[in-house]
């Protein structure tokens, strides 16, 4: 009966209209919510987050104990730098290359020392933080947005780590490796695009441009 109720609840939730959430009139909540969504709507961030989560989680709980705090520390270092304008953005290849490495490592399932996990997680958090400049937001709005980014990225990573760590059955472990190969494959393609001949990007209206650097300004702007 509990399972049935849970299933029905999940089904009901899936029909919840979410349109209104993107148009909240409450001052500041728009930037905060936009910040929380930021890791999800920037494909390079999402790729790095997923890759890092698989990479850390696959190694086990003792590595997660090092990796998660290191990631948070990286965010704590990177976000203020982005907020203060020291760094405006990170070119996509610098975000995608670590994702490719993480994906390849997950696909191979080779063990790693905890120190390596710590360094890698710190780098991932730092890169995401540095690449999360508030854009048009200023002052309190920018702060809300940065806090949102931290919470969104952290929340996503925690869930990912928990799921991956709990995947104990052989087929679940294999699924993680398959996901790692997907992350690596996507990242390798995007890296190749960085070396591709100039292509006209219709979103920017100019030739060339970073294939992953399309920022949804409306996520960060007031509704």
């Amino acid at each position, binding site marked *: 009966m509990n399972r049935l109720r849970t299933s029905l609840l999940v089904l009901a939730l899936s029909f919840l209209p979410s349109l209104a*959430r*993107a148009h909240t009139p409450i001052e500041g909540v728009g930037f905060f919510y936009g910040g929380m969504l930021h890791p999800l709507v920037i494909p390079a961030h999402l790729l790095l987050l997923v890759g890092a989560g698989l990479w850390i989680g696959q190694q086990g709980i003792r590595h997660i104990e090092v990796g998660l705090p290191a990631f948070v520390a990286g965010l704590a270092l990177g976000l203020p730098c982005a907020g203060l304008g020291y760094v405006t953005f990170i070119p996509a290849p610098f975000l995608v290359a670590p994702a490719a490495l993480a994906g390849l490592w997950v696909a191979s399932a080779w063990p790693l020392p905890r120190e390596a996990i710590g360094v890698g997680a710190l780098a991932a958090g730092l890169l995401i933080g540095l690449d999360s400049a508030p854009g048009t937001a200023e002052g309190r709005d920018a702060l809300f947005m940065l806090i949102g980014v931290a919470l969104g990225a952290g929340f996503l990573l925690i869930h990912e780590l928990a799921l991956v760590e709990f995947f104990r059955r052989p087929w679940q472990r294999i699924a993680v490796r398959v996901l790692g*190969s997907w992350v690596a494959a996507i990242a390798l393609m995007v890296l190749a695009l960085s070396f591709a001949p100039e292509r*006209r990007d219709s979103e920017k209206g100019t030739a060339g441009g970073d*294939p*992953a650097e399309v920022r949804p300004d409306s996520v960060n702007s007031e509704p």
Partner: protein
Amino acid sequence: MNRSVSRIAALTAGFLLASAAPVFAHSEGGLGGGFISGFTHPLLGWDHVVAMVAVGLWGAFLEKPAIWILPVVFPLVMALGGSLGVVGVPLPAVEAGIAASAIVLGAMIAFALKPPLPVAALIVGAFAVFHGHAHGTELPEAANAIAYCIGFVIATGLLHLGGIAFGLLVRWPQGRIAVRAAGGVIALVGVAYLTGVV
């Protein structure tokens, strides 16, 4: 342990459900459009579809460890081919290679051939280059590239999973016949594409 996994899965689902889907529909038609464009690219060509399903089928047919090695290796080699296509390195007879992949993989399944794992991986890898190259060169200029890549890699992986799921029927005698028959159909589709019938 199962309860904990269920709770975590439910929390994750809740977090994802609470995420506003309209972000794709508002400012970034490119993101959603790029993903859909990439996701549907392997699905809109039957030559791609049958070959991807055949990889999963053959992996299930070969059993462990091929059943998971092939779906792990294939996307990576496909990405290599895709990278070649993106940077403009020409590859001769791509369409013929894609059709041939369906023929060869389908025949392997139909005739219940089980070569050594390195040979199987080599065959699959060689064909993966052709498929990836096609996806890379056909990357539409209007699409958000990374979203496109995410889309077609996921679609390809799901086709593999479909093939594996169907291939698990080999555990039963009738299932084995069904899988081998499917391999025959896949090979015939490949012949149809190669000869220009389709």
